[in-house]
């Protein structure tokens, strides 16, 4: 099997893992969205990822970038709401960064391109109570961990997931300034953002699949940042 086929297989594994996770969390995402949005995030995301699974069938021999792009277009067509253009459009646009295959370098480029497209399309900044609050710390942590701290990509990814989790927590206590929740004004305070939450789920699933394929320490002891002395359950 060629290297690009192996990478495509991993991309498909990630997609399956995310689709399963979204299915499992469908009700939870919708519950979060009913509090401050239009109560469709779980159903929309589930519909989108099921469509993506269908559309990538038989693409095992394609280049990884082609499969990633296909996932993006499937999400655009089926998710609806803001999540369709935001997730799907950003994945589709960032997929070109993977044209040379998936490496530490291209994965950083993908993450940065994804974030740039997302912010361009949604016009949201950190603190607006959106998926950007989870994504910005994740992307920045990933890039810094690899480029400045010279950590293996798997360790960098685990730190990024941890950063995203803190970002999700951050969305709880702030007032929404973008998206449907912003219409609620102060009533949005105290609720966790559904888009930040689904972003975290995706990153967690990417990490889980990556852990099966990459070497490196998974450093998520800050997963429970308020209990620094507690040993992580497993490394």
């Amino acid at each position: 099997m060629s290297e690009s086929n192996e990478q495509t297989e991993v991309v498909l594994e990630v997609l399956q893992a995310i689709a399963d996770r979204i299915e499992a969390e469908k009700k939870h995402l919708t519950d979060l969205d009913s509090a401050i949005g239009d109560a469709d995030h779980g159903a929309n995301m589930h519909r989108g990822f099921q469509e993506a699974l269908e559309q990538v069938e038989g693409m095992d021999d394609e280049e990884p970038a082609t499969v990633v792009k296909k996932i993006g277009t499937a999400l655009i067509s089926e998710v609806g709401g803001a999540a369709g253009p935001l997730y799907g459009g950003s994945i589709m646009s960032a997929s070109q960064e993977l044209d040379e295959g998936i490496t530490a370098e291209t994965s950083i480029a993908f993450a940065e391109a994804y974030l740039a497209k997302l912010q361009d399309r949604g016009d949201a900044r950190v603190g607006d109570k959106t998926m950007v609050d989870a994504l910005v710390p994740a992307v920045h942590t990933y890039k810094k961990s690899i480029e400045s701290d010279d950590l293996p990509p798997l360790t960098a990814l685990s730190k990024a997931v941890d950063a995203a989790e803190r970002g999700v927590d951050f969305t709880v206590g702030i007032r929404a300034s973008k998206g449907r929740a912003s219409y609620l004004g102060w009533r949005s305070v105290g609720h966790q953002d559904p888009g930040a939450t689904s972003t975290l789920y995706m990153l967690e699933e990417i990490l889980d699949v990556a852990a099966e394929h990459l070497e490196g320490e998974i450093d998520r002891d800050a997963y429970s940042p308020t209990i620094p002395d507690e040993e992580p359950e497993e490394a």
Partner: protein
Amino acid sequence: MVSIVVVSHSKKAAEGIRDVAQEMGGDATIRPVGGDPDGGIGTTAPAIEEAIREASDGSGVLVIADLGSAVMNAEIAVEAVEGEIEATIADAPILEGTLNAAVSAAQPDASLAEVLERAEEARDLRKL
């Protein structure tokens, strides 16, 4: 003739706005689009793209959308027809903007830029 695509989270709202605007817009082509793939409230980019393609007669298409994600999906649809159809999104309130645009588009020699300008003038409409 410049055509107009009305994008709402609600297909019924889009159709209603079309009906209101058509009364003033004579022969202007106004195509309503809306609803998510399950028939619920929402919008999708492919449906908007299809509406743009159907509405177009080669003279340009003005797209007017309601809230947040409808605008994002309209952007993706406009990007998808880039190079084939001249389409642009109006930054205007959806009903008043569509009405203004329809009146403007009913003049056969009106350009897309002119129809866009008329639509966006609706931002300044006062009611009281």
